[in-house]
């Protein structure tokens, strides 16, 4: 056992020595290092900037709510509030879908609005071409470096004849594989682990009110684990292909083809396929659907049959003949009833839309068994707190807040408004009873549970590549 460990470490050290004496290794490492530092810096600045903007806007918006002056509570409900999505500090590693979905929603009376303000819409064409992010480096560039470091690991030794020498002295192919894997993992680790450390240190400086430090560090640790699985799989795959190929050229072509499909073709193809299988409505279709459904409820239309039926029911309930004789505000009651009717419609329509998104995500993730980026990408966004799940969690929280605000305004009418009095107003005292929306980013455990399928797929893929590499190495002949 001791001997085997000695053999493996001897091979790994020799591989590293060869790499260190190769100028190309220093060039590739240097470029990746500069790119990662730039990406971290840019990501950090962007995250801080947006977080600061949101915090300021949030304060201004709430102040506007408080300062809106004396008015009818329902007018105040129409005045509404703006909600700003809390920025996940880990967005500096993986900005996720934040650039493509809105971060702001107007919470007004009667309507569950969609999010607005998509940064991607304001982006220049250069930014649209692809922002430099840490995820791009880790998901796409580092695998390329692994491919370039590994493709000739076995074929090169065969082509130069050193494989004969190695096998003649009784080195086990599995030990050769282990040694080479260890060397490449060490080289990649030496490049990435300091970056991870830097990220963790930076995270300590993120002054964020939306997530606890323990939550963020846990999420960070799981991110490191996810990327470690992904990159380990890539090392195993590259070495396996090298062991199984008859020439370095063939190994390189195979690996580059895989790299392109994994990084560029499969994600796009699967997105299209998912849309084909589970089509999402266009914005207009979606709004039309809601508008159509809302026709069944009355809103402000006092001639609507449903309105008339509701009025008759209330009068009957209180055993009076006229609205003026009701002990409570009928206007408040009808507003509350109208809103409650709307909630069902919104829950149904938004629920269906989000289910479709979730189904699309599952379809995309399945590709991860072959092309792991399909599983890593959602995992990474999920742990960074920048995926659809986190977006929807915030949307749900904002909607709940909107409903509480609506109900509070209607309740105020019901309790204090006299029927027939058109000049009833409330004041700051009521506005202050509505606390500002404070959304907390879900705990790390929630995100992990949400991503367990993707993590499982990634693990399966890694184990498959390791199995492949071991099998390929076993068949190694000089």
């Amino acid at each position, binding site marked *: 056992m001791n*001997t085997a460990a000695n*053999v493996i470490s001897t091979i790994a050290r020799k591989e590293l020595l*060869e790499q260190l*004496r190769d100028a190309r290794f220093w060039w590739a490492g240097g470029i990746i290092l500069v790119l990662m530092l730039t990406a971290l810096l840019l990501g950090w600045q962007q995250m801080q900037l947006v977080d600061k903007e949101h915090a300021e806007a949030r304060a201004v918006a709430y102040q506007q709510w408080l300062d809106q002056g004396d008015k009818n509570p329902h007018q105040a409900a129409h005045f509404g509030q703006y909600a700003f999505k809390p920025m996940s500090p880990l967005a500096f590693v993986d900005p996720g879908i934040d650039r493509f979905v809105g971060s702001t929603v107007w919470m007004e009376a009667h309507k569950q609005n969609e999010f607005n303000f998509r940064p991607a819409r304001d982006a220049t064409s250069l930014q649209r071409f692809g922002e430099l992010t840490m995820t791009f480096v880790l998901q796409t560039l580092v695998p390329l470096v692994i491919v370039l470091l590994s493709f000739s690991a076995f074929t090169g030794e065969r082509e130069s*004849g*050193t494989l004969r*020498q190695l096998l*003649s*002295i009784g080195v086990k192919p599995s030990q050769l594989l282990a040694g080479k894997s260890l060397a490449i993992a060490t080289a990649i680790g030496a490049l990435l682990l300091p970056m991870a450390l830097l990220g963790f240190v930076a995270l300590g400086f993120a002054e964020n009110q939306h997530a606890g430090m323990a939550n963020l560090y846990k999420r960070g640790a799981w991110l490191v684990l996810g990327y470690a699985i992904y990159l380990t799989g890539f090392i195993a795959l590259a070495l396996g292909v090298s062991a199984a190929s008859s020439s370095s050229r063939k190994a390189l072509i195979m690996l580059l083809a895989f790299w392109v499909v994994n990084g560029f073709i499969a994600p796009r193809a699967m997105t299209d396929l998912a849309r084909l299988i589970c089509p999402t409505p266009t914005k207009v279709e979606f709004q039309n659907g809601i508008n159509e459904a809302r026709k069944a409820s009355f809103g402000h239309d006092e001639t609507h049959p449903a309105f008339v039926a509701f009025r008759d029911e209330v009068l009957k309930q209180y055993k009076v003949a006229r609205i003026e004789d009701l002990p409570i505000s009928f206007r408040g009651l009808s507003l509350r009833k109208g809103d409650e009717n709307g909630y069902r419609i919104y829950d149904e329509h938004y629920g269906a839309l989000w289910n479709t998104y979730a189904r699309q995500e599952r379809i995309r993730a399945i590709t991860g068994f072959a092309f792991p980026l399909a599983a890593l990408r959602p995992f990474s966004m999920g742990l960074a707190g920048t995926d659809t799940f986190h977006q929807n969690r915030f949307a749900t929280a904002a909607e709940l807040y909107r409903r509480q605000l609506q109900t509070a305004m209607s309740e105020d009418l019901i309790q204090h408004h006299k029927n027939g009095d058109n000049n009833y107003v409330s004041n700051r005292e009521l506005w202050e009873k509505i606390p500002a929306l404070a959304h907390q980013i879900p705990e790390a455990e929630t995100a992990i549970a949400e991503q367990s399928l993707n993590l499982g797929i990634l693990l399966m893929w890694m184990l498959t590549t390791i199995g492949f590499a071991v099998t390929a190495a076993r068949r190694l002949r000089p």
Partner: protein
Amino acid sequence: MLQATELTKAYNGAIALNKLNLTVNSGEIFCLLGANGAGKTTTINLFLNFVSPTGGQAQVNGIDVSKEPLEAKRHIAYIPETVMLYPSLSGLENLKFFTTLALGHKRPEHELLELLAQAGLVEDAAFKRVSGYSKGMRQKVGIAIAIAKNAKALLLDEPTSGLDPQAANEFSKLLDRLKAEGVAILMATHDLFLAKQVGTRVGIMQRGNLVSTMATDDLGHADLERLYLDIAYGYSKEAG
């Protein structure tokens, strides 16, 4: 020590080695002679389990090499026609690497330098990168790798090709010493002079068959050359 029994190898039906029976005992040097394609390298590849036999078996120290390849290789050292090393490492680093792998532990540096000196490599060169080595210098590192293992059997495939006359002479002295230490040596070579000089026995191969075996003591150099050319001539006539 080295034993082939009815050892046969065919590539897609073409016989490369036909029912070879051969025993090389400890302290014996057996030289395989023959034209290119006669089956010499195939024999050595079979002993190294680089290729699997179609029939028969190859044994090292009583161990079937195709059944227990790793165990068998512990007893073998091998020097190929062209020793291939890692160009970005020095000769000494290459020797250290292969020796550690062969033995499972490190040998002290002064011993390794001593081995390189025995193989005829000047000490200065040991610290230089192999990328600047001549073929002969690489060959010397290969020889050092082989003797570092202290193997009981040595397989040599045209080991002196590329060596200058002085180095070839030193090499034959080294073989004599190993023979005296009881190593069994199987050598494929074109070098009739070397075969006559160091060989205990020679075997002449033709198209996968071992056609003739004789002890070198029984024949002079001229006899060997005539015999060899007869067979080689016969081979080329039939092939032509």
